[in-house]
């Protein structure tokens, strides 16, 4: 007897429809899975048999062959347990074939017969072409965000069989709570002082400019960076779905409302490997941190401590917004359009980098600076020094100074500035092509003169010029003034592009 049910497997962050075919025939009792299953998939054999017996179902004492089509693609993961079990039941005649028409199955089976969630449920459910999909109860909400196949939830194999036979109902799909702001974001009004850092955050959020914070330990670089996602607007429905799909595939904890509506914030430690950052892997192609930070913020603390080869892999995704990870068996494209925020000390000793204020030798400072490659440094439109706050400021009672602007105030300005960029026809000011700068970011005569002087002095490179003009565009948008960009915006853009590392260049 033969039966087939649709299911799906994960390739990168995309689902691939898999037809699970089971053939039960007379012969010596045997159970084999063919069609390029990976290790976790092959283990399905033992899980399915145990689940059968725990659920009070009879395992057919016949020759059972499972084929996973298309057979050319490697199948990954334990999500095929449930479709294998159901197709076996149908093929063995324990379930009527009509019960499973137009119904897909995704789920891992426990030895006790329970049905569990698998990573990537969003992408898997989206790949199911059938009108309904059966998933574990803990994955029901996740599968439901796709919206298209009707989600049928069950907590155990026994319940699946009963519901398919019509003896029992499906578990209800939990209603999603309204999306809410995550608690951990922190408000910008907690930050004392740091006028340059605050401005840089605002500009980064408004214009999509990558940001490098330079300062001694304890200056508040991380505190600032963590407040950046709060300034970004909510994700649009398409972006939110894409980010949710990625996070689901990466096995990240999804928010209570399942749909990721706030820009994500990812902060990998500097021991991160290239694969963990960019994506890939041997058993299964997993999205890397840069994809988990898609449409959000990737924060690299202690930038200079990251291995140089790991950092340099970021350069191409930074330009293209996605990364193509190629392996012998497959090439997977991961979305990776993120805002890069990095923090570093100005030198290894942890001083504040002021002239004469550190213990490092010139040689060690030069070495430290060389750890971040020039091309990567060049991607940062904004490079800002962050200083330890004044002691008096820190211990002053909370009310002594008027608090700084709150996140919501700044986020309002950011949203307006982003709207202006969108009206201009660019996704963000950071992406204005150089050829259109004169058109989209015209300079006032005084602003032009200032840049000319800097260029002649050799304090600004041609590439730096474009980046300064884009930042100045964002600054002008934030101020809301129409017309060409004035001199003060250019001055501010120049001030936000400090040299990150200081080391002596001898003029002899």
């Amino acid at each position: 007897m033969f039966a087939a049910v649709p299911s799906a497997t994960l390739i990168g962050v995309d689902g691939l429809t898999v037809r699970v075919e089971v053939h039960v025939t007379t012969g010596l009792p045997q159970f084999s899975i063919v069609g390029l299953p990976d290790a976790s998939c092959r283990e399905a054999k033992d899980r399915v048999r145990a689940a059968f017996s725990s659920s009070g179902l009879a395992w057919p004492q016949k020759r059972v062959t499972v084929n996973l089509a298309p057979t050319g693609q490697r199948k990954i993961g334990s999500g095929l347990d449930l479709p294998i079990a159901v197709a076996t039941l149908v093929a063995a005649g324990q379930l009527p074939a009509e019960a499973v028409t137009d119904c897909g199955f995704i789920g891992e089976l426990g030895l006790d017969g329970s049905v569990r969630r698998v990573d990537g449920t969003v992408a898997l459910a989206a790949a199911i072409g059938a009108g309904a999909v059966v998933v574990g109860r803990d994955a029901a909400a996740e599968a439901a965000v796709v919206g298209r196949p009707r989600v049928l939830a069950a907590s155990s194999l026994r319940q699946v069989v009963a519901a398919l036979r019509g003896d029992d109902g499906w578990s209800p799909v939990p209603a999603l709570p309204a999306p809410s702001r995550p608690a951990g974001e922190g408000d910008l009004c907690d930050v004392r002082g740091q006028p340059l850092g605050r401005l840089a955050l605002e500009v980064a959020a408004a214009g999509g400019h990558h940001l490098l914070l330079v300062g001694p330990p304890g200056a508040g670089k991380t505190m600032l960076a963590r407040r950046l996602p709060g300034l970004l607007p909510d994700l649009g429905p398409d972006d939110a779905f894409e980010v949710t799909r990625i996070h689901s595939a990466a096995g990240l904890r999804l928010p209570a409302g399942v749909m990721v509506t706030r820009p994500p914030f990812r902060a990998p430690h500097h021991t991160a490997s290239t694969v963990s950052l960019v994506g890939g892997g041997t058993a299964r192609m997993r999205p890397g941190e840069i994809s988990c930070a898609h449409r959000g913020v990737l924060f690299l603390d202690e930038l200079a401590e990251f291995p140089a080869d790991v950092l340099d892999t970021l350069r191409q995704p930074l330009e293209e917004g996605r990364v193509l990870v190629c392996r012998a068996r497959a090439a997977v494209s991961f979305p990776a359009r993120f805002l890069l925020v990095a923090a570093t000390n100005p030198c290894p000793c942890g001083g504040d980098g002021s002239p004469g204020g550190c213990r490092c030798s010139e040689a060690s400072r030069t070495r430290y600076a060389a750890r971040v490659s020039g091309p990567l440094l060049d991607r940062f439109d904004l490079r800002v020094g962050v200083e330890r706050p004044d002691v008096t400021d820190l211990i002053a009672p909370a009310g002594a100074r008027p608090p700084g602007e709150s996140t919501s105030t700044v986020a309002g300005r950011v949203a307006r500035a982003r709207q202006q960029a969108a009206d201009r026809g660019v996704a963000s000011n950071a992406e204005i092509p150089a050829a259109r700068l004169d058109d989209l970011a015209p300079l006032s005569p005084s602003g032009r003169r200032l840049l000319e002087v800097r260029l002649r002095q050799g304090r600004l490179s041609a590439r730096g010029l474009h980046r300064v003009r884009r930042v100045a565009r964002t600054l002008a948008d934030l101020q809301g003034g129409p017309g060409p960009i004035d001199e003060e915006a250019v001055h501010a853009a120049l001030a936000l592009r400090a040299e990150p590392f200081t080391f002596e260049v001898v003029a002899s």
Partner: protein
Amino acid sequence: MTASATGSGGWRLAQGAYAGALAALPGMGPATLCALLERGAPADIWDSVRRGEIVRPPARGSSGGAGPRLSWAAAAAGAPLERWWDAWQRRGIGVTWPADPRYPRRLLSDPEPPGVLFWRGDLGRLESRCVAVVGTRRCSPDGRASAYDLGRDLAGAGVCVVSGLALGIDGAAHLGALDAPGAPSGTGSTVGVAASGVDVAYPARHAALWERVAAAGAVVSETPPGRPAQAWRFPARNRVIAGLVDMVVVVESHVTGGSLITADKAIDRGVEVRVVPGPVHAPFAAGSNQLLYDGPGPVRDAADVLDALGLVDHRPRRSGRRRPAPVARPEQLRLDPARPAPPPSAGGPAPPQSCSDDPPSSPPPPSVGPELRSPRPLGRPDGPHGEVLEAVGWRPTSLGRIVERAGRPVGSVGRILEELAAQGLFTEDRGWWQRTAGGGGRRE
């Protein structure tokens, strides 16, 4: 004579070759070398060493030590003396020792003199008036400017500026001396005392500076040519600096700075020490300020140094001469508190007592001194410019702090800073701003 110092060619080299070769023997230090050279002509001593009559003294405080020690006889037998001497002469490297007439006179009475001194350039510069300008490698822009000005103005006044060729203060002092206007040779007199061989530029990026110093003055070293500096050579070099000069001026020093060793050695030798005061909270001036507190007097610029040396500074100073001639010292001027301070003369009508029809030889009117001493006849600008000026300190200040203190938008602060910097009120060093006392024209 076959195994004597005549070498295989059968001709004797100049005595300097033997003196230099003795300095290059393994484990040779200044004290041993001095004692050795007191025995007679270097060539004869070399012969004795080769013949094994003078043996290497046992290592102090160790029995056996680590690894085999090369004996002097073996080292001397293998030394390619003629090749060395040829190479030294080709590169213009001279050798002098205490019995040599060219040996710097000041070192003859030194308690720890160098046994042998290698040099490039003109050793005669050390017989003139010499002042050491020393300080930290990790200095502030202001310290660098001070050292540069001291070097330039002292060399311009005919004083030979001695320093250690290091990064930071030392290099700035040499550069200043090289840029001195009006010096006889078109460039000021300066001598660099190196810890490595005179042909081994350390730090490497000062190679061009070494060449310029050797051309304009001299580079001297106790270390044989071709050898890098070992750690002990640096404090030893500092004692040579102290022994070569009439005065040591410390510009900036951390608490563990080598320039404090130079100052200590100078005090041991009865050489006067002066300190350029630095900001009290700055780590780069902590050592020099401590030294200042311990006794040596302060100096602000070359005029103070020349005054302290007893040289009347009668050379025309660069624009903005800030103090009266040494005869009218500021402390004497301040003895008359009854006299009201005149209004600032800049811009306004000149007060009658400072009319320009005074004969140029007469001392300036006493009341002018303190006024001209003020950092700058500012007439502090009003409005935003004044606020920004206030917000920048005399210490290196970051832009973020300035914006915070001034309470103005970043762009406006940036514009005002640039305008004020163009007037020479600030220096900027890689994002750190600092007020300066003088006008522009300072070279970084």
